[in-house]
């Protein structure tokens, strides 16, 4: 079954076409990777899918219903969450509280309720703490739960963002360069995590420059070049496609391992 359908998306920034006629579908339960040289429009595409950029043209459907141009919080509510290439953690909160914010949709979030603490609040807090801690444990960060997130190492923050996004209970999780700046051990960790998430039934969309990671975990790979879809296929086919090799050899990422 198709989880996400993208039809003919176009986005322009002041006359520059960041995306042009982009269309693809992501089937439920798969890992779908989007690769391409820098400036190809990968992050812009993620921004469109999570409501941060409005497309000037085209449609996005999620589980059959149209969601084009819906605001981020509404997309989160129907099951689309993401991480960011340029980290967007909440630095002044603890790692645990970062994940608890991710549980916003599962919590009763009225301000009056918050102020008055009706019976059951302490139990709800305890549940929220425990669930957040389990998610931190899942990405291997239980040991930093009570540390301020702003002081954590880069690779740790990357995984914290994944835990936080998972807390919102996404059906589709978009990961923007989860392995960027990570050492090989951390990258292997993320590799394992992605496959485990897939086993749990979370559909993953992945933007990543680490070709070893992409080719290892992906079910489908889409190559984006200058805002247009160059090819979309299985990893093996993409790897051997002469147009892809050309697009990459012509760019700074020729040494990416493809």
């Amino acid at each position, binding site marked *: 079954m198709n989880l996400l359908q993208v039809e003919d998306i176009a986005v322009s920034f002041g006359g520059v076409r960041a995306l042009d006629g982009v269309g693809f579908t992501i089937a439920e339960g798969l890992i779908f990777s989007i690769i391409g040289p820098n400036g190809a429009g990968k992050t812009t595409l993620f921004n469109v899918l*999570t*409501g*941060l950029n409005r497309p000037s043209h085209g449609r996005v459907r999620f589980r059959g219903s149209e969601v084009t141009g819906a*605001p*981020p*919080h509404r*997309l*989160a*509510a129907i099951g689309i*969450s*993401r991480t*960011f290439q340029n980290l*967007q*953690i*909440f*630095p*002044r*909160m603890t790692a645990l*509280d970062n994940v*608890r*914010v*991710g*549980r*916003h*949709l599962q*919590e*009763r*979030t*009225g*301000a009056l*309720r*918050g*102020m*008055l*603490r009706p019976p059951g*609040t302490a139990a709800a*807090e305890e549940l*929220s703490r425990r669930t957040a801690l389990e998610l931190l444990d899942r990405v291997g960060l239980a040991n930093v739960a009570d540390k301020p997130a702003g002081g954590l190492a880069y690779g740790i923050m990357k995984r914290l963002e994944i835990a*936080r*996004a998972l*807390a*919102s209970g996404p059906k589709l999780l978009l990961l923007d360069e989860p392995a960027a700046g990570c050492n090989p051990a951390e990258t292997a960790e993320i590799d394992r995590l992605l496959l485990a998430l897939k086993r749990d039934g979370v559909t993953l969309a992945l933007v990543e420059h680490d070709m070893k990671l992409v080719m290892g975990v992906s079910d489908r790979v889409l190559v984006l070049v200058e805002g247009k879809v160059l090819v979309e296929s299985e990893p093996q086919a993409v790897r051997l496609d002469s147009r892809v090799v050309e697009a990459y050899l012509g760019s700074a990422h020729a040494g990416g391992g493809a």
Partner: protein
Amino acid sequence: MLARLGPPAAIAAVILLAPLLFQSGYHFRIGALVWINALAVIGLNVLMGLAGQVSLGHAGFFGIGAYAAAVLPARYGLHPLAATAAGAVLCAAVAFTVGRPILRLKGHYLAVATLGLGMLVAMVLTNEVWLTGGPDGMPAPRPDLGGWRISGPETWYWISGTVLVLGVLLAQNLRISPAGLALGALHDSEVAAGTLGVDVARSKLVAFVVSAVYGSVAGSMLAFLNGHVTPDRAGFLQSIEFVTMAVLGGLGSMIGSVAGAAVLVVIPQVLTFFHEYEHLMLGVLVILIMVLLPSGVVPALSSLLARRRKE
């Protein structure tokens, strides 16, 4: 538990113990003024410290609360307590209506828009002479409860102190609740908060409404304490004073809000000895505090203490 109840307990202890140093009704009056200002600043801190949205119009709500407590009993025969509640509801309604469009603005633009809101309220209070008494203000009634007339600085010291502790407790509960976490989240990254399901516009609006209600209740209590209201309570200088109290004490700190209010209420009283140099000295003091303790008095001191303890 300690993190939640610590600040209100500490503030309650100060309120209980401070009178040991008092020698006259005048001291109780100053104490009541500190608690009233602190309540308004706690509200402002929900907006500025927690949600990270600046307001230069907080005194507008303070003024509405003060005038509700004066106008509604005098002209419409409402009980002063009912008038206080009506003022709070009115402020919530104004904040809800005005907040929707202006909270879309960020940083300097939001500052100027809230500034305009505060000035608008002050202007209405000054110009609608038939209702408000104009620039000279109007008397506020002494409320009575079952025949007992509530008046005198000592009585208001205890009432305003109790309301402050209650206000701190509610704000503290809010801060650690999911709603408060969402406010802290949008303060750090609106984009990330949104993609996690936080309705950023709505959350900001809620913080604005909460802050307005705090300002209103504080304003009503000031009217009762003074027995008189004037439009400058809603004015620009009063708004700036609230922001100064919040920043001086430490944005986001409950105890800091009280400390900031105490500094700006008490120090001018002490400095009256120095007559014409009073404002100069207060200005220098504020500059010194901000230069030496840029994160505000209370956060700076508590991190200093924490460092000492580690060594």
